């Protein structure tokens, strides 16, 4: 349990942060996900992949939240380590994608999930995932030119 927490808390936090735009909420989501994970383990329900289970759980929690309060902004670290180019990319491109689009592109690029696994997680066909990723990339290129 603690090992899974140490191993995946940062990934889930980053994923949640760029999807919700709320740091406090993302921290809460990380805690809630692991609480649900502990309950799941206690009930001895089978978990095939811990990482996938944690991401799907966090995704469901995020969508429950987004129903109540739509995303407004993506927080950007104001430190010098974040370049101007990164800030522009986050504000003008990533921040303007729909949550479902952002989720898909983050799972693929930020988290490095292969198309096959994304399809299984989101209950879509692999071809549907590829087509959606292509449309998102097109949209991102249009946003970059604005």
């Amino acid at each position: 349990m603690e090992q899974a927490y140490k191993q995946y808390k940062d990934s889930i936090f980053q994923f949640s942060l760029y999807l919700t735009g709320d740091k406090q909420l993302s921290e809460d989501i990380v805690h809630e996900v692991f609480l649900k994970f502990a309950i799941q383990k206690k009930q001895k329900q089978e978990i095939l992949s811990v990482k996938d289970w944690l991401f799907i759980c966090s995704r469901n929690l995020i969508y429950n939240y987004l129903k109540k309060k739509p995303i407004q902004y993506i927080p950007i670290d104001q430190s010098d380590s974040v370049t101007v180019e990164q800030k522009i990319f986050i504000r003008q491109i990533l921040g303007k994608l729909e949550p479902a689009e952002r989720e898909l592109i983050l799972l693929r690029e930020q988290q490095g999930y292969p198309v096959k696994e994304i399809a299984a997680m989101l209950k879509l066909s692999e071809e549907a995932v590829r087509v959606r990723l292509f449309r998102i990339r097109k949209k991102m290129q249009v946003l970059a030119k604005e």
Partner: protein
Amino acid sequence: MKNCEYYQQMISSIHDDGADINSVEELKIHVTDCSGCTEFYQILLKQSTQLQKLPTIDFEVEEKTNQNIFRKIWQTKISIPLPAAAAVLVFLIGSFWLTGNHNQAEPQIIEVEQKQTDYQNVQFVKFSPQPAVLVKSIE
């Protein structure tokens, strides 16, 4: 005649999954003559890199909070058997306490000498934590 949309989708798919050699060859021929698709590919690579290197914001949860969450998890784990565990614990403590009192309820009587008892001179001497000892005085 396949249009740029087709090739750009192919570029996106190859970026995700890789592709067979025939597709790559076909794509290379198209991209050589198409500035639009070349640009699409270059921007895709750039944005992909940007997404992979998104600034990470620290998960600033103090150790105390971590302890709290694990305490919460621990409480969740024992939530169901807690009443049963509490009942067993109360039973055990009760039994132990009653057994202990039962021994103390009967003080030992030491008859120093078998003589006629003078109840006015009877003294109770208590040695803690031993049970009270009744000592009969000797004439």
